[in-house]
C-alpha cells in the first residue's frame, strides 16, 4: 500500500526540478550551451524557456509534488497523454486545471461514471429540423486539454471510444471525421484502490498513455501550507497562462527535435526488451513504449535545459513511462519494482 511509488522517479526530487536548477548546462563557468541555431530545427531554447515557465507556474499551485508536476510537464512537452493514478484528494484535478490554464488552453472535463456513453465523449450528430441536415455537436473531447476523471469507472465501450480519439487524433461519427484540436492532451485519473464497480483499463488502453504518475501525499509542512491556501484552488484563480496554444505546439515540435544519439535509443530499447523477459511479468513493454520513453526523455532533457538526451533522462522517465504498461502478476506496485530492478540491472550506455 504505497501508492506514492506509482510514477515516482528514481529520486524524483533530485532529477525533477532540482536538476533544472543545477544542471551543469546552466553552470556559468561552463557557459551557456549554444543552442541549435541556424540548423533549421525548431529552436530548443524556446521549449526550454517554456518548460521552465510552466514548472514555475505549476509550482505556485501544486506544492510538494515535484514528481507528478514534472511528469505533467513532460507529457505536455512531449505531446503524450498522462495517466494519474492516485487516491482522491491529492490534487489530480487541480494539477490538470493548472496545466491547462498555464498552457493557455481550454480544459474540458469528463467525469467518468458507468452511464457515460461514447457519444457523451466524442459528440453526437443531431438532426437540425430547420436545415434538415444532421449536424455534429462536438463532445468534450474537442479541447486542447481533456481531463477524464475516474476513467476506470466508465464502461469499456466509452473507454474505447475515448482512447481511440487519443490515438487517432480525430473523431469519426457517422462516417465523418472531425480532427481534434492540436495540441491535444488527455489527462486521465483513476483511483487504484477502489476497484469496486470499475472497469479496469486493459493493457492496450494503458499503452496509449505516454506516462503514468502518482501525486502522492505531500509532507506535513506542505500539507499545512496547502490547508492555509485552500488546497491550491485559491491559487488557481490567480494563475496566468505562460503561453498560447500555438507556442505550446511549437514547443512540442522543438522538443521532438532534441538530439537523441543512437546509444541512447539503444538503451531505451534495451530497457523495454528487458521488461519483456523480467520475472513475474506477463506482458512487457511494447515497441510503442520505447518510442514514448525517448520522447519523454527528450522532454526531460528540455526541462534540464539540454538540447540532447543523456542516459539520466531515460532513467528519470523510465518508471513513469514503463510501469503502467507492464502486466504483472502483482499489479501496479510491483510493476514499479520491476522497472526499478530493470534499471538497476541494465548497464547504462557508455560514451
Amino acid at each position: 500500500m504505497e501508492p506514492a511509488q506509482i510514477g515516482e522517479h528514481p529520486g524524483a526530487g533530485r532529477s525533477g526540478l532540482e536538476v533544472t536548477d543545477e544542471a551543469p548546462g546552466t553552470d556559468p563557468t561552463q557557459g551557456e550551451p549554444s543552442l541549435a541555431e541556424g540548423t533549421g530545427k525548431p529552436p530548443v531554447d524556446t521549449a526550454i524557456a517554456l518548460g521552465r515557465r510552466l514548472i514555475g507556474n505549476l509550482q505556485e499551485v501544486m506544492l510538494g509534488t515535484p514528481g507528478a508536476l514534472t511528469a505533467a510537464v513532460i507529457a505536455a512537452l512531449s505531446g503524450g497523454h498522462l495517466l494519474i493514478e492516485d487516491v482522491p484528494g491529492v490534487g489530480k484535478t487541480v494539477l490538470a486545471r493548472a496545466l491547462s490554464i498555464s498552457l493557455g488552453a481550454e480544459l474540458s472535463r469528463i467525469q467518468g461514471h458507468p452511464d457515460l456513453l461514447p457519444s457523451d465523449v466524442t459528440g453526437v450528430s443531431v438532426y437540425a429540423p430547420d436545415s434538415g441536415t444532421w449536424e455534429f455537436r462536438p463532445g468534450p473531447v474537442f479541447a486542447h486539454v481533456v481531463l477524464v476523471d475516474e476513467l476506470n469507472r466508465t464502461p469499456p465501450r466509452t473507454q474505447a471510444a475515448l482512447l481511440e480519439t487519443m490515438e487517432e487524433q480525430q473523431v469519426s461519427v457517422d462516417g465523418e471525421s472531425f480532427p481534434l484540436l492540436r495540441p491535444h492532451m488527455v489527462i486521465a485519473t483513476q483511483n487504484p484502490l477502489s476497484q469496486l464497480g470499475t472497469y479496469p483499463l486493459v493493457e492496450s488502453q494503458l499503452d496509449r498513455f505516454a506516462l503514468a504518475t502518482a501525486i502522492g501525499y505531500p509532507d506535513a509542512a506542505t500539507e499545512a501550507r496547502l490547508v492555509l491556501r485552500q488546497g491550491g484552488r485559491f491559487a488557481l484563480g490567480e494563475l496566468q497562462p505562460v503561453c498560447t496554444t500555438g507556442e505550446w505546439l511549437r514547443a512540442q515540435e522543438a522538443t521532438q527535435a532534441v538530439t537523441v544519439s543512437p546509444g541512447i535509443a539503444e538503451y531505451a530499447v534495451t530497457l523495454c526488451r528487458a521488461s519483456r523477459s523480467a520475472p513475474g511479468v506477463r506482458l512487457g513493454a511494447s515497441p510503442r513504449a520505447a518510442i514514448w520513453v525517448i520522447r519523454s526523455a527528450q522532454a526531460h532533457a528540455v526541462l534540464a535545459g539540454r538540447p540532447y538526451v543523456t542516459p539520466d533522462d531515460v532513467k528519470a522517465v523510465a518508471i513513469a513511462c514503463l510501469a503502467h504498461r507492464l502486466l504483472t502478476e502483482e499489479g501496479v506496485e510491483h510493476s514499479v519494482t520491476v522497472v526499478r530492478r530493470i534499471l538497476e540491472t541494465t548497464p547504462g550506455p557508455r560514451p
Partner: protein
Amino acid sequence: MTLTAGPLPPVSPPTARERRAARRVGMLGNRRKGRVHPLRAVLPVAGALLIMVAWGTVARNSGSGWVQALGAALAGVLLTGMVWPALALRRARVHCTGCPTDGSAGLPVEIMVGASARVRVEPLEPSGPETFVGPGNRSQRGEAGIVTLVPGGRGIHPSIVVELATAAPFGLLWWARTVRVPLPTDLHIGPRPGTALALPPRHDERAGESSRRIPTVVGEPRGVRPYRPGDSRRWVHWPATAHSGELMVREMEGPTAEPILVNVILPSSPVVAEQLAGRAYATVQELLDRGSPVLLGTVEVNGPCLARVADRRAASRRLARAVNGSGPGPGEITVETTGPDR
C-alpha cells in the same frame, strides 16, 4: 465494544534445525559470506588420506610400478572428486524463477528455483527442507526445481538465503556456499491464522434465532462482476451466474457501514508475537467474512499504520509488515467498533 487479547505462553523454543540455519545465515554477515566451504570434510578427507597412505604402503612394499600408477590414478580421482565440487559451486548460479507473493508462517511455500548446475538447495532464511535443483535426469537443463520454504515467522522477504551444496561429479565430498537469491516478487509471510477473538454477535443478530445467518452485505448493490478468489460465496449472484455462464458475484458501492477497528500491538518476544499476530489475523478474517469493513492498526518499521484492509491478503500483508516490540508491555489486540451499533 473493546476486546483485548493478551499474550499466550510460549510453546516451544526454536528447534535445533532452526538454530543451525540461523547460525549459517549469520555467516552471511561476516567474512565467510558466499565463501565456498566443505561440509563434513573430516571423514572423506581422512578416508582419502587413509586410502592413499595404505596405497603408498602397498606400493612401497610390493615395489610394483603398476600399484604406483593405479595409486596415481586413484589420487587423481580422490583429489578431483574433492576439489571439483568447490569449483563447480563457484560457477553455479541459482535464480528464482517464480514465487508466490504471500504465505503464512509455519506453512510451506513453494518457490521455483532454477540452477545452472545440479545443486542441493537448503533454504536457510526462511528455512526449509533441502532439495535438488538444476539439470538432471528428472528435469531438463535450466528447468526450475521446486524449493519448499517453511517460514518460521512473519516478514517480507525480497530475497531468500539458501545454502547451495554439491559433490559433483563423484559424490566424494560435499561443498557448500551460502547465497542470497533475490525473489522476483517480494514474499509476504503473514501470520498463521490462530483463534479469533470471541466477537460479539452483530446487533441485528441479537434476536438470537440463529447464530449463522447470512451476513448482511454492507453497501448498496451496484451490479455484478465475475467471481474473484476471496469473494464470499454468499455474494454469488445466481441469476447473473446462470445468465452469463460464469460465476458472478454482487458488488457493492462503497461500504457505508462504520468500520471496525482492530489494533494490534505485538510484543518483542517473537514466539508470542507470532501467536498474537495469528489471532489478529483470524479475527480480521472473521470480521471480513461477516462483511464488516475493517480498519487494521499496526506498527510498521516506518511507524504506526492505520488503514482499511479489503481482504484477507491485505490483512496478511499488513500483519507481515508489523514489527515486534512495537509497544510497551506484553502486546495486545483490541477490537473496537467505531460506528453507532454500540
